[in-house]
């Protein structure tokens, strides 16, 4: 039996366990606010099972959280499809046929096209500063780099501007990114 040889390993394991524990709480909280609570517990469990079985090598909190987001989103999408196609006897388990990366299916592709169209219209109505900020972000520039490009002293100013622009854009799109 292998005992964690270093404090780092123990910390890493604890942090992974603690991260997953907290993730479970957050997933339940999120699902409960959007869906039924009974399903929320099951949903959280399903996400953790996938992480445990498929992504056991992922340990860092910075990697586990976004992974949990993706798995949760996928689960939610699948759950919606199941609800639409209830009674279909040839349902395919998403666990057996997981989607790799972000490869979209036709339905998702259509949703993304619609989302892109709405986003384009919303961006066109943005102010000059918001458009410039959005352009820098699309070009992959970090917030510190954007601060230099826009000639701003405080980084917090860029955070604030981005937060306001994002809020305005979200309002123009009806309060959510997805159509």
């Amino acid at each position: 039996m292998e005992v964690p040889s270093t404090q780092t390993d123990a910390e890493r394991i604890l942090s992974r366990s603690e991260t997953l524990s907290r993730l479970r709480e957050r997933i339940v909280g999120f699902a409960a606010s959007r869906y039924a609570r009974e399903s929320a517990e099951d949903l959280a469990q399903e996400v953790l099972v996938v992480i445990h079985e498929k992504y056991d090598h992922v340990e860092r909190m910075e990697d586990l959280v976004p992974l949990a987001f993706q798995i949760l989103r996928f689960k939610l999408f699948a759950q919606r499809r199941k609800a639409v196609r209830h009674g279909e006897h040839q349902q395919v388990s998403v666990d057996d046929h997981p989607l790799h990366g972000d490869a979209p299916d036709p339905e998702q592709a259509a949703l993304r096209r619609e989302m892109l169209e709405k986003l384009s219209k919303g961006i066109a109505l943005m102010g000059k500063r918001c458009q410039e900020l959005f352009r820098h972000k699309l070009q992959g520039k970090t917030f510190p780099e954007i601060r230099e490009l826009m000639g701003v002293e405080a980084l917090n100013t860029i955070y604030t501007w981005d937060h306001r622009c994002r809020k305005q854009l979200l309002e123009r799109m009806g309060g959510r990114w997805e159509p």
Partner: protein
Amino acid sequence: MKRRDAEKLLGGYAMGILTETERRSLFEAALEHQEVFDALMDEEALRELLADPAARQRLLVVLSEAGPAAKVRPFWRKPAVLGLAASLFLVVTTSLMLRRQPTEALHTRLPEAAKAEPEQAANLAAKETSAEAPGIAKPQAPKTGGAVSRTVVPQASKQAPVPAEGLQESYTSTMAKAAPPADQEKGLQAAESPAMAAAAPSPVMAKRAKAASGLSDSSRPQANRAETKVEEADAMGAGPVPTPFSHTLQRLSDGRYRLAVTWEGDGHVYLVRRATAAASEIPATSTKAKARQRTAVFEFTLEPGQVLDLFLRAQPEPDPLALPPSEDGRGRWQRIIPGSEGL
């Protein structure tokens, strides 16, 4: 990290531009705060979309096409509104300018005309014979409302009967008397219109023009021109124009006429009898001089339709028949048409 600070990183999360430190702080906040976790879950859709390079490129194209024009500007800053406002401004300004120009021109003319009228009236009045001093006529105020002109049309006698020599009627015309009755004026106007229509520099002509037209405003310019020509003639060294003269036409018992012309100072009197196609000079029967007053008497016959042109020239004329029946600035001229009053 506080929840509010974490929410400011949401925009960077979907774009994938957060630094390592920012990501850690954001995810720690997400594990700690449900609202941040929920917001990150909502950003997941956008993150998936922007993970596609084609979608990013599409949005960059939209941003490059939108540019500054996408910004919502106040309506009064829109080019169409600004252009319309500028057009309206131009139209209003141009209309006001055009409307003001005739008014300004009129106002400009009115003071000038107002000045000219007294001057013209003064010039006309200055040529009255009755009160004028010898020599060149000086401007004087009109004695009446303007009716100072005198015509040569014989009128009903206003003087004492002619001494016993068989004179049937006599009549006198002077430059200072009032204008004749309207019909006489019309007859005079018809007879003298050619002469009056010509440039009449003499004040005699000016007064005649005024009487004939009933002192209409149209006569004033003619009179003014007449005065101007007289003054110009003087200025050109043509010699002083003789003073106005008076004459008296009488019908003799034997059917002939006697014309007595009186003037002051120097001068040479010529009488020309004119028919339709012929003219003849009538020599003076006698000439008298008393102090500065001089009188020339002519006796002659007149056929129906004949008229007389009386000239008073400063210099002797070699060919009186060639004298134009008008004021030329070098003498006086008057047309006499006997017979209109029954003579």
